[in-house]
């Protein structure tokens, strides 16, 4: 078994809090089945990339990308558990490099993010199924959105967990930060219909791009800006990964 596979397997077995994972999956379903249908009655179908979609379809696709952000939180939690329980140093005194360790956390986070998204998508299928277009291009866009989004938020959570001095503070600050990401993105509403300040913030928000690209792929509703959004998201993910690696190297043992 490859060294990364071994570390990833260990991260998934040892550091995942199953109860939190369950609620992270349940959380998006509330948006899909409660908020989506609740608001659907007062919001008429609207155009998205040349196609008409209902609000519940729009929100269901956004809610799937919520698992990306939840997966990201898991990366920080994994690192915190290892630091708190002495396994961080124990592993670094084994035949592994720091790079292998941090990448194993990112890979584990990718697995959580992608598998979580797929699970939520399965539940959301009755809502969005009728509008889904399974094209190769669409599937590639979905894969890219989930991969890059999880990479960004996983790296962000790692950098945050290094910067903060206790796991409790990390939980509070990461929850707050992710709420800001959430409400300045296009998960709940199209960014173009938001107040100007939020529209501006959404342009820097990787969750906006993750969600837009995901929707474009899901509904085959390509907009002229999809390639630009993909490029910005990739750049943000790479930059945040570098920040996480630099922060991680500074952890004092």
């Amino acid at each position, binding site marked *: *078994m490859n*060294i990364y596979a*071994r*570390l990833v*397997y*260990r991260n998934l*077995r*040892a*550091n*995942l*809090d199953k109860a939190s994972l369950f609620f992270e999956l349940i959380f998006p379903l509330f948006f899909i089945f409660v908020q989506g249908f609740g608001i659907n009655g007062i919001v008429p179908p609207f155009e998205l990339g040349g196609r008409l979609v209902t609000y519940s379809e729009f929100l269901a696709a956004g809610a799937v990308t919520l698992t990306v952000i939840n997966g990201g939180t898991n990366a920080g939690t994994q690192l915190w*558990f290892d630091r708190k*329980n*002495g*396994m961080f*140093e*124990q*592993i*670094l*005194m*084994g*035949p*592994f*490099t720091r790079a292998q360790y941090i990448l194993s956390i990112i890979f584990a986070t990718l697995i959580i993010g992608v598998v979580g998204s797929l699970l939520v998508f399965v539940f959301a299928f009755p809502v969005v199924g009728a509008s889904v277009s399974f094209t190769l291009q669409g599937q590639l866009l979905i894969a890219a959105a989930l991969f890059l989004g999880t990479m960004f938020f996983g790296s962000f959570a790692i950098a945050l967990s290094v910067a903060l001095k206790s796991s409790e503070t990390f939980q509070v600050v990461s929850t707050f930060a992710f709420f800001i990401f959430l409400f300045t993105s296009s998960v709940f509403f199209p960014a173009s219909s938001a107040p100007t300040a939020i529209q501006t913030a959404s342009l820097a928000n990787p969750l906006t791009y993750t969600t837009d690209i995901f929707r474009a792929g899901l509904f085959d509703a390509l907009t002229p800006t999809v390639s630009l959004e993909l490029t910005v998201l990739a750049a943000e993910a790479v930059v945040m990964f570098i920040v996480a690696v630099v922060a991680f190297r500074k952890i004092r*043992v």
Partner: protein
Amino acid sequence: MTQDGTAVRVEQLSKHFSEKVAVDRISFEIDRTEVFGFLGPNGAGKTTTIKMLTTLLPPSSGKVTILGHDLATEGRKIRARIGVVQQQDSFDQGLNVETSMDIYGLIWGVPKPERRRRIEELVDRFGMQEFRKKPTIDLSAGQRRRLQVAREFIHDMDLLFLDEPTVGLDPIVRRGVLDYLKERVKGGLTIFFTTHVLEEAEYLCDRIAVINQGRIVEVDTPENLKRRFGSAKAVEFKLLQGSSPEMTTALTTLEGVSHQVQDESTGAYRLTTSTPESVIPGIYRLAERLNLTVSSIYIAETTLEDAFINLVTDDNQVDTMSGGA
């Protein structure tokens, strides 16, 4: 191992944290299959030294060769051949005892059948049968410590660093762990061992380095340390007649006795001396002259703890007199 049979060679190793010198130009060598004790008071630099030797902390200066590999450039090769039991707890909170050992073996690349075999052996040897299915988060401090030491033996290694491995263990388990370590040394393992329990250092170590304020004060065998730095021995005796004021007075004239004390409840005398072999006949002569009978007499042996305390105290006094290092 190196061709000359040296497992660890440390030359002028130092570690500075800003202005503070944690480890100050220490040098020593450890032979293969040797158990090398590293003793020192709290904050002496033991854990910092271990962290440097296990590649966790970069040294500020000095040269270290471990198992033939240069610490500065071949850290990963070193880590692949060592095991470490840290002073602090280390456990996977989401796993039970057995699974935690299994996954630790997995990340080290130990094949599954071998892991299964070793887990059975270690669970048995470390008395973990009762709690092998218990989540690690629910273990007592002693159980968790036992797991931490046992878990390290799931993978192969040539050199094991043990930083106070028996903290929290009861005497029976502790002895079992020490005996297991001795067995592994016979099988070719080299051990670097720190502890505050000097009896176990004496029981296990071939040589001991005493470190104080970041500097190595002395390196020798436990026997030599006791002989060279142990306190004067004590002669303890009792009289059939119990307490005797005449004897108490007469003992002050006995040559070679630096201090005498009498236990009021038992009447036993304790004389501190560096020459017990000449003091004992003197006691019998005094007793005969005073018409008293010695009912029991023995020499209380010096301990490694005496030697350790004397070494560290003397070093601190030298340091104070010279105005600090």
